[in-house]
């Protein structure tokens, strides 16, 4: 029985809002992919493009915010329509922030390209792939209004956190080994942190999809695998290269 709105222009506005999110999501996916590639390939030109591309995402967010506020003011949406508008606002903010992380990764890749190659850098493409997959899954889930798919993506964040935690430890040992490693390792650490945060925003999006479809917040505790905040490395333990341990 829930079909289209009697007022067709309202239906069109809601559809446009949803399309904008999907489009913005596509751009964010591409930005993350290109940024991670720029790290792996030491591609300064590609990185520069990513940094320039961020402005487009800011514009997307402004437009979505404008349209959402307009609909709140003029349509006074309720029920699922209210949730559509609120969730669009929140998802666009998550996407915009994810875009910022991509831009920051690109920026750091330029610095990294001028420094010696660090072994832990090999973990970055893996983390990058996982983030891209999570993003793709939550965006598909948004388009299909598919809660199951959103929750599946939400669970994958634990995997990302594990990757981050192990990279964190590895990078620390490299820094302790040789102070000359500190600069590239710090950049790597921030890049990894950016990816880890991007994963958190993907889980936010998944939670918002749950609210959008079910009308209830996702009441489960999010799996938190990022234990890097608790990591203390004893210098006696990490003396020597990681391979010797």
């Amino acid at each position, binding site marked *: *029985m*829930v079909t289209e*709105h*009697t007022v067709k222009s309202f239906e069109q506005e809601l559809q446009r809002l949803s399309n904008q999110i999907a489009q913005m999501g596509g751009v964010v996916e591409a930005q993350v992919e290109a940024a991670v590639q720029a790290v792996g390939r030491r591609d300064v030109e590609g990185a520069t493009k990513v940094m320039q591309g961020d402005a487009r995402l800011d514009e997307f967010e402004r437009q979505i915010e404008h349209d959402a506020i307009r609909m709140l003011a003029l349509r006074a*949406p*309720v*029920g699922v*329509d209210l949730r559509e508008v609120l969730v669009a606002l929140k998802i666009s903010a998550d996407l915009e922030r994810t875009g910022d992380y991509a831009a920051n990764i690109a920026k750091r890749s330029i610095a990294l390209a001028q420094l010696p190659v660090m072994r832990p850098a090999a973990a970055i493409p893996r983390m990058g792939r996982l983030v891209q997959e999570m993003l793709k899954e939550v965006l598909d889930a948004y388009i299909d209004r598919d809660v199951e798919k959103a929750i599946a993506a939400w669970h994958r964040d634990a995997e990302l956190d594990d990757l981050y935690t192990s990279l964190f430890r590895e990078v620390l040992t490299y820094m302790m080994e040789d102070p000359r490693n500190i600069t590239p390792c710090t950049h790597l650490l921030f890049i990894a942190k950016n990816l880890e945060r991007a994963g958190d925003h993907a889980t936010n999006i998944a939670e918002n999809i749950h609210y959008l479809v079910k009308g209830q917040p996702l009441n489960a505790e999010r799996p938190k695998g990022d234990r890097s905040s608790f990591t203390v490395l004893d210098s006696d333990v990490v003396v020597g290269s990681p391979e010797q341990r």
Partner: protein
Amino acid sequence: MDTTTLTKNTEAVSTQPVKVSARDVKVFYGAKRALHGVNVDVYKNEVLALIGPSGCGKSTFLRTLNRMNDTIDICRVEGKILLDGQDIYDPKLDVVQLRARVGMVFQKPNPFPKSIYDNIIYGPKLHGLATRKDEFDEIVERSLKRAGLWNEVKDRLQEPGTGLSGGQQQRLCIARAVAVSPEVILMDEPCSALDPIATAHIEELIDELRESFTIAIVTHNMQQAARVSQRTAFFHLGDLVEVGNTEEIFTNPRDERTQGYITGRYG
């Protein structure tokens, strides 16, 4: 009849006692059934909004609560409506007395063609609530104050009620309804003939009146239902589809028909 069976989404209950209880209420106009067995409780000191498309039975239901349907010959009511546990369709019950306990405010302000003062004391006089002039004076002042009209009319109480503005007339009708100290006030689209400012006055008034009375209001304006009520009941084609906390009805209704109606997808 199982009196514990309520329509779904009624677990969102008030901590207040039940004031009015409808159990399997069916209403017929001749052979046509207008209500198909409504179960709902109205809690003391709450505002219950009744919403739904035209012809859904919400006004019919409201009118069963003080037996206004008795005045329609072909109308027949089945089921039970309990006011403080007492069946209001009990043949031994005095209907005039019932309507003093359950007052009503209508869509169009309908002051009597009398003075403001006489409009207010009409009910109290009929029910013998006062005899002396000072008692009536007090009722008039108290009722008009409760309806938020006293300051606007205190110097012209002898002027005709029909000379007031639409919004003032409606507040006069509310003052007239509260003058007999009812327990329940029924409102049938009380703001549909009023401008937004007069509407805001009535809505503010409803919120204040809730402290002393139990209120059921029929409205076509869903934003009004959202603003004034604690619980909302959605009627559709003679069924009570869903009743629940207003907040929940307007953010996450359970029934697709409710969703369709409140979001404007009603076909």
